[in-house]
């Protein structure tokens, strides 16, 4: 290869790539308004983004998959956890995550700041990320539930338990988080009806409960299936 050819490779390679990249950047700007629902990007959402940056949330949590890998991704946190849990955990992480082996700093946010953060997460929740992240993808979750139930050993209730991220907080047969009660023998402590009440609206039983209410996101039949499954957890090994 001659020196001139080498220089030509350099010029052609750099220019072609840069032109393609800049052209697609221009087109991305055109399309991103729709993909991110920019019409709903209100002053409150923007104020929420400022709060998100002010407390450096992003150096522990990823959002859109970017940032620190120390804590759960926040892209779909609004859908996964619901507004009530988001408010609770930001206001009193020391209490909500008291049993968790990983801690979140207690930053003493003003009520107004928490409101704006919730606005921000609600807006982020609807960004079209091509169905990322997989763990929060509704279509993948239903496919995965169908796959699980096609196995003979798994009940509908067990599939619902997994698909609704109960393992995030609860431990069952040694698997799962520790911020909620261990459920290995929950059937000895609570009846089916009591479990239904907890799942549907825990705060009605005790306003201090940190668990989100599921009566809005799950049907009555689903909550019953889940409660039946849990009432059968009586401490024995499966």
């Amino acid at each position, binding site marked *: *290869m001659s*020196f001139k050819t*080498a220089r030509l*490779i*350099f*010029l*052609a*390679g*750099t220019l072609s*790539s*840069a032109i393609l*990249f800049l052209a*697609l950047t221009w*087109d*991305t*700007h055109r*399309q*991103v308004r729709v*993909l*991110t629902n*920019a019409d709903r990007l209100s002053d409150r959402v923007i104020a929420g*983004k400022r709060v*998100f*940056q002010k*407390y*450096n*949330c*992003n*150096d*522990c949590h*990823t959002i*859109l*998959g*970017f940032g620190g*890998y*120390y804590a*759960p*991704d926040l892209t779909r946190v609004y859908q996964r956890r619901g507004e009530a849990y988001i408010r609770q955990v930001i206001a009193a992480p*020391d209490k909500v995550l008291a049993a968790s*082996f990983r*801690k979140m700093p*207690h930053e003493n946010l003003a009520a107004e700041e928490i409101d704006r953060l919730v606005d921000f997460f609600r807006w982020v929740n609807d*960004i079209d*990320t*091509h169905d*990322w*992240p*997989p*763990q929060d993808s509704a279509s*993948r979750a239903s496919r*995965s539930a169908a796959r699980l139930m096609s196995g003979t050993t798994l009940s509908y209730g067990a599939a619902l338990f*997994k698909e609704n*991220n109960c393992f*995030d*907080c609860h431990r069952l047969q040694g*698997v*799962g*988080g*520790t*911020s909620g009660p261990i459920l290995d023998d929950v059937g000895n402590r609570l009846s089916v009806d009591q479990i239904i009440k907890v799942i549907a609206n825990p705060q009605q039983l005790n306003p201090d409960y940190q668990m989100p209410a599921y009566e809005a996101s799950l049907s009555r039949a689903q909550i019953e299936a889940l409660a039946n499954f849990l009432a059968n957890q009586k401490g024995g090994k499966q």
Partner: protein
Amino acid sequence: MTTYASQRVAYPYFVLSLLLFGLQVALGLWLAINYAFTLPQDLVNVFPFATARAFHTNLLVLWLLLGFMGGTYFMIPDETRSEIYSPKLALVQLILLVGTGVAALIGFLAGWTQGRPLLEIPFELDLVVVAAALLFLFNVGMTLFRARNWTVIQGTLFGGLVMLAVLYLFGIPFYHNLSIDWYYWWWVIHLWVEGAWELVTGAIMAWILMKITGVERRVVEKWLYVEIGLFLFTGIAGTGHHYYWLGAPKYWLGVGGIFSALEPLPIALMVWDTFRHVRARQAEIKNPIVWTLAVGSAIYHFIGAGVWGFIHTLPAINYYTHGSQVTVSHGHLAFFGAYALLNLTVFYYAIPKLKGLDQFKQTLSKWGFWVSASSMLLMGLAFGVAGVIQTYLERILGLGYMAAQAQMQFWFKVVIGCGIIFFAGVILIIYDLLTLKPQLKTSSA
């Protein structure tokens, strides 16, 4: 031993760079402890993981940049056959940058932050960085233009430095739209490490290889052209591999996927190039550690950035591994291979010359290299295993974030073990470089 008096200004850059490197690694160990053990809430409230991570990553950027800048000041007098335009300005620039660094670290502790990973430093400090960058470009530019002795190496270096400074500007504003924010965040981070930094380090490495091997300039520069051409061809449009899931159009999966799959090519060429130049050497290599580091950097660069990057950025895999410990594994191996080892190559080439040593004792440096390089490889693998566990449990089985993290604890403890050994290797290197001893057996001619 240095031909030009103004080359000496590189030395304080190297010393500060090394000390910040040590501090960066110490904080890395602290981060690993955060992962593997439960810390008391009171401690987390005052020194959270987020702050420690901001320390770790900002120190990384600062020590690497100070190393590149010192390397540039050491190299351009020799390349242009002239003194640096103003060594005093170079010192002012160093004080500004290190001052910014110290202010930023203290600021992070007090919550003074822009809150964007790696670009945490607040707007006011951004302005100081821009001022320092302008001083640097002015000083280097004046030296090059005054000498009018242009070479491909000089052009590549200066082009890379200008690109580096211009891209930094895209990271300064507050963006309203989170997706646009991350879109331009990658103009700084990706186009730095897979663009501007490759130009700067490609030029410095080409120059060092030419110096230690005595291979003809025209040959070195020809291959430098091909290398940086391929780096920029694959790297610029390859930015798309960060745009898969952030709210950008779907064509980025195709564009990013194809261009980033080609990204190992220039690195492979660089490895081959390095080997060929070393084999075809005309001069006797006096300090073998320099080419051990040069070859080590090239191979490590290929594994960490090339192979790991290739696998991690295939869209079908990245859907599951994006933003997991797999990313951490790739980040550590790639940064250590491509940039940390390259800076160490520069330090081991330049510092002996600045101290007037023709040959120096190689024992400590060899230990330092092998201990740090092998422990970092193991650490990268441990992060990788943790990442695969996370990908499977959290993203495929859907067990939830903390449930997956609980199963990864063991591997974070392995990371701490590797980190302690790595830290020891780095301390050896820092100590050795600051106290180089002449090789007594051979009397230099």
